[in-house]
């Protein structure tokens, strides 16, 4: 047993080292400017909150955080809302060409963003949606939709038909079955899909960089990439901004790990 515990500790230590780049960035965010360049000592002589102060008070990050949060929540809502309905239809209802549609969903998850960004840019421009939340909600939501449909179709299929049949026997129609039987049972699966969709939208860079122009709709990754520096690059401030940008992902990995893992596995193990 002791050998097992020691082994466990070694593995944990190794994984901590794996995550070391992140911890280093966290350390950088509290390191005083004078000790950043050049690097002469591993641990800072003192901790400072000045970088966070600059980021929260003088930079565009707070606004970007709000943008990212709003856009991620709404695009997740869009993907899950439309995706759940479509998944139920594909899983349980007679649909001609179901196989083709599902195959198309799978294919759509492989679409390269770099190919669709130019027509989407022209489309957003034509619709006057440049630099708006709606542009990104639509772009992110539609990009996550195929994966959500694929995942949820699989999850719904896992629910025993007997439950639905029993409800049907009791006189419930399709929509009632969906609402009262299927949705509650597939809720954990929906949570998994929602987490993946949210993460995708939060982390998304290409569309956000191309469709946004000002802080009205700039998301966190774009704000981070365009972090201003007049003379030199403010590494400490960037580290602080990076940490703030990582809060939702950290929360999800630490707090909702089970759902996240389930979503990832389902996506890969389904053929």
């Amino acid at each position, binding site marked *: 047993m002791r050998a097992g*515990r020691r082994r466990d500790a070694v593995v944990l230590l190794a994984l901590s080292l794996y995550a070391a780049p992140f911890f280093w960035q966290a350390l950088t965010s509290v390191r005083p400017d004078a000790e950043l360049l050049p*690097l002469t000592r591993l641990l800072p002589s003192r901790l400072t909150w000045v970088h966070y102060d600059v980021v929260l008070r003088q930079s565009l990050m707070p606004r970007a955080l709000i943008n990212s949060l709003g856009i991620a929540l709404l695009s997740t809502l869009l993907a899950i809302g439309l995706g759940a309905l479509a998944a139920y239809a594909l899983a349980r209802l007679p649909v*001609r060409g179901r196989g083709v*549609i599902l195959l198309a969903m799978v294919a759509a998850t492989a679409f*390269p963003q770099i190919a669709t960004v130019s*027509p989407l840019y*022209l489309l957003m421009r034509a619709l006057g949606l440049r630099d708006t939340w709606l542009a990104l909600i639509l772009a992110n939501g539609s990009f996550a939709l195929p994966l959500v449909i694929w995942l949820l179709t699989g999850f719904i299929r896992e629910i025993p038909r007997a439950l639905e049949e029993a409800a049907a026997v009791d006189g419930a129609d399709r929509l009632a079955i969906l609402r009262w039987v299927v949705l509650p049972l597939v809720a954990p699966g929906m949570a998994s899909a929602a987490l993946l969709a949210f993460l995708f939208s939060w982390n998304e860079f290409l569309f956000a960089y191309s469709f946004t122009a000002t802080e009205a709709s700039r998301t966190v990754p774009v704000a981070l990439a365009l972090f201003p520096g007049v003379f030199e690059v403010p590494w400490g401030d960037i580290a602080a901004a990076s940490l703030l*940008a990582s809060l939702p992902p950290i929360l999800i990995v630490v707090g909702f790990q089970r759902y996240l893992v389930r979503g990832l596995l389902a996506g890969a193990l389904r053929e």
Partner: protein
Amino acid sequence: MSDRGLAWLLLSPALLVLATLTVYPALWVLWLAFQYRIPVFGISRWAGLDHFAFLAEGTRFWNAAWVTGVFTVTSVALESALGLAIAVALRGQRGGRRTALALLLLAWALPSVVTAKMFEWLYHPAGGLVNFLLGDRAINWLGDPALALPSLILADVWRATPFVALLCYARLLTIPPDLYEAAEVDGAAGLQAFARITWPLVRPILLVTMLFRTLDAIRAFDIMFVLTGGGPAGSTESLTVYAYRALFQTLQIGLGSAIGVVVFALVMVVAAVYLRLIGRPERTA
């Protein structure tokens, strides 16, 4: 309402969104690839195959294809090997599993821009941890054409390995321990057990993750763009970065779309090849 009617009612919103924002752009980009289209100057006319001919004859395109190829093959190979190793190491984990997975998944969950900035700082010649640990040598990881691509690959491997590790780990968990105990009784342990038991059972899932990772690596953009921007001197300019520059730095929508179409075709071909390899009746046992 009939079941069929309900089905289409439930499907149509999703299909409409996809048709407008995914299918239509996919077709549109093909159309754009055959145009000279520069919105800034109002240029819009037929180009035929001119963009593709130009790309085929141009060294910049083949350099980008080379970078994409090297990046993809190397990243996927490293991620798969490392991911499998981590999965095997984790397999025997009894306590602290949640913590272990959290530490591992953190790298995967971070926004790629955060990862890019993180590694840019780690690789900094004067202030970076890497040079500090190596003994203060002022190696310019991202500025040296010979070192930039390997540095970039390392960053992406760090980011993507957890995905491979997680999937392999999940698969390994389903292998009953009795198999290993029986093998030990038979005198086969360690490497032999791995080769005879673990590998055949984990191979299918590894292939699936390699497919995902390959497609992702071909399409990779964020890390490359933010970490090196395609430099120095195009040594890290993948097809996606080349396309982006053509599209948004010079607003040559036609040329950028042509490159995008090439990436599109590449992704579809690779996916088709992989699926044939995986789709053979070799179900996960």
